[in-house]
């Protein structure tokens, strides 16, 4: 196509007048002019250069594509009808190679039928200008195209900035998850008596479930909502988890744990962040649970037999809301029996909505419990009820449900757990008695000093005395002094036995008894571990005959060990029989 470009006189006039203002927006562009007519190219080039633009020239579509690749111009003015490759094809090719870069292509054409003009836009052109070219229009269209180009460039810059930012956030989130997993992972809900609906490591939802064991065979459970996701959830979860684990190991009580967690969260959490949680301690031996509920829905205690449901409502502020001085701590204590179940759950469970926007609610939850006929199925039934209530509606909030089954047999051996070396006694003492001390040692003095140290033992003086006196008497009389307990059976023998005891004691030149006491205690109770060892050859045979005689209920002697055993949680002798280990619990 060749057609003379006609510059009108009026246009020139206008050009010279308006150039300064118009040029503000679109000065110094790099423009690719594509036309197979040399004169057209020259005229356009002159006009553009006069406005301060840099001009590249192409004589057909193929050249245009090559020039575009090489020069990366800001804009293209494109003729349509050209040899080798026409303008439509060249435009498509340039747009394709530009990718995300925005290059305005303005078609310059003498064709004015609607179909042809529509095609200009359809192939990717951004505008068209008809020949003969009005310089005012050309300049205005150039400026408009340049505005869009700049806007596009700015958006693209922001976009890439945003995606870099997003990348970094994702990386940090993954980092937080790793930290969270490391810290929380070790204390996750892996106890056999606990079922939890959410994977405890699902940091993305911010819910936290922790389970720990105390030295006394108690189980601590924490269910909490960390508030926030990713890093902000980890900020709260990390100190809570650390404190939970450390204090569980030490066997500290719920109230103290709550105080410590609150203190730490006040110190670390940003203002306005808090941690709704429920902390629970189950004492299988005492048959009680201690529950501190700070801002989570009512905990349900479901009895194994009967329909009884006890609710333990939140009577506390969530953690991290106020300082310890302003915080009242209400810990509820409930009696539990083997087979009872406790349900802890997040807001998300009762807030689940159905298709009509109705909430599942506490009422429906408790109805599921009332309708339940097999407690073993209750956990599933609650989940099923929530799911079927929700129907097709998308889950809006995170749902956490924890079931704690009060069945001590599911816990890994409480006794074995208690004997792990990391267990630290609250206090202890060790007494070594040689020949000189054996006659003077008085079990009552030992009881007095124990009670002096541990006030809770005041009511245990009598049985404690009996246990210590019996084990000591056994060690001394049979182990060190080698007295035969058969002596005591006859009326005269009884006196003879104790005379003989005095005589041998006064003549004693060797032999010893060691007494070791360790006490593990907290506010709820404790254990005293008494170990008595003597220098004798062992009295295993004597101990065995003790039991047999005591069972007959009439023997005048040898009932000491079985009496002590009855008063203790456990009493055992080592194989040799010269070392006794008694555990007295309160």
């Amino acid at each position, binding site marked *: 196509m060749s057609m003379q470009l006609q510059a009108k006189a009026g246009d020139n006039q206008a050009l010279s007048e308006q150039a300064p203002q118009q040029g503000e927006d679109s000065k110094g562009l790099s423009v690719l002019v594509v036309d197979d007519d040399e004169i057209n190219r020259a005229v356009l080039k002159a006009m553009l250069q006069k406005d301060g633009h840099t001009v590249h020239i192409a004589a057909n579509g193929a050249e245009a594509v090559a020039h575009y690749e090489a020069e990366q111009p800001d804009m293209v003015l494109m003729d349509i009808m050209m040899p080798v490759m026409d303008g439509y094809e060249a435009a498509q090719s340039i747009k394709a190679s530009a990718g995300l870069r925005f290059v305005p292509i303005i078609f310059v054409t003498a064709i004015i039928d609607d179909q042809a003009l529509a095609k200009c836009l359809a192939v990717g052109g951004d505008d068209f200008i008809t020949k003969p070219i009005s310089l005012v229009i050309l300049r205005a269209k150039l400026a408009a195209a340049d505005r869009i180009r700049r806007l596009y460039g700015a958006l693209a810059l922001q976009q890439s900035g945003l995606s870099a930012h997003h990348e970094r956030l994702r990386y940090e989130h993954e980092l937080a998850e790793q930290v969270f997993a490391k810290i929380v992972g070790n204390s996750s809900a892996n106890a056999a008596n606990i079922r939890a609906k959410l994977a405890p490591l699902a940091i993305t939802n911010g819910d936290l479930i922790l389970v720990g064991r105390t030295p006394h065979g108690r189980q601590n459970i924490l269910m909490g909502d960390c508030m926030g996701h990713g890093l902000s959830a980890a900020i709260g979860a990390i100190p809570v988890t650390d404190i939970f684990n450390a204090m569980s190991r030490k066997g500290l009580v719920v109230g103290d744990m709550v105080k410590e967690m609150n203190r730490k969260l006040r110190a670390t959490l940003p203002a306005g962040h808090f941690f709704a949680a429920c902390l629970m301690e189950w004492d299988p031996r005492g048959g009680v649970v201690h529950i501190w509920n700070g801002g989570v829905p009512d905990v349900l205690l479901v009895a194994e037999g009967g329909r009884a449901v006890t609710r333990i409502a939140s009577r506390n502020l969530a953690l991290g809301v106020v300082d310890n001085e302003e915080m009242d701590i209400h810990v509820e204590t409930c009696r539990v029996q083997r087979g009872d179940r406790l349900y802890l759950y997040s807001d998300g469970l009762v807030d689940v909505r159905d298709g009509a926007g109705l909430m599942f609610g506490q009422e429906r939850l408790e109805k599921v419990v009332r309708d339940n006929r097999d407690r073993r199925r209750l956990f599933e039934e609650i989940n099923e009820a929530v799911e079927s209530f929700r129907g097709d509606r998308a889950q809006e909030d995170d749902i956490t449900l924890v079931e704690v089954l009060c069945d001590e047999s599911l816990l890994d051996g409480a006794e074995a757990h208690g004997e792990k070396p990391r267990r630290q006694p609250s206090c202890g003492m060790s007494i070594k008695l040689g020949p000189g001390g054996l006659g003077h040692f008085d079990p*009552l003095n030992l009881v007095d000093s124990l009670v002096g140290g541990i006030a809770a033992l005041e009511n245990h*003086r*009598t*049985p404690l*005395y*009996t246990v210590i006196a019996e084990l000591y008497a056994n060690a001394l009389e049979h182990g060190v002094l080698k007295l035969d307990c058969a002596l005591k059976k006859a009326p005269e023998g009884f*006196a003879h036995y104790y005379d003989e005891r005095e005589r041998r004691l006064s003549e004693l030149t060797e032999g010893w008894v060691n007494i070791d006491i360790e006490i593990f205690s907290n506010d709820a109770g404790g254990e005293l571990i008494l170990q008595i060892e003597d220098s004798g050859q062992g009295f295993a045979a004597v101990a065995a005959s003790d039991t047999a005689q005591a069972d007959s209920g009439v023997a005048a002697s040898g009932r*000491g060990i079985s*009496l002590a055993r*009855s008063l203790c949680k456990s009493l055992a002798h080592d194989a040799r029989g010269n070392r006794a280990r008694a555990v007295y619990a309160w």
Partner: protein
Amino acid sequence: MEMITVTENEKEGVVTIAPRKRFDFGAHRKFRESYKNKKGTVSRYVIDMKEVEYIDSSALGMMLLLREHATANKGVVVIAYCKPEIRKILAIANFDRLFEIK
């Protein structure tokens, strides 16, 4: 201080034996004297436990020996006024089956 106090009501044939706070082998001599070599007939021995706070198996043994003696002489032994902790220890030792405990 005496480890044990013994009072006798000869007319009614009742001997009351009251150990102190601590009832153990240290009392055995005096305890035994309370019933050995009695001239009159004793139909009833009362072990008054109201002061006793600490007890061991030698005390249980002494009470069993007293019971043997009393039974042989057609008498009874009553263990009286026990503190709850002491009562519990006696129960563990199955003394309910052998003695009247009140």
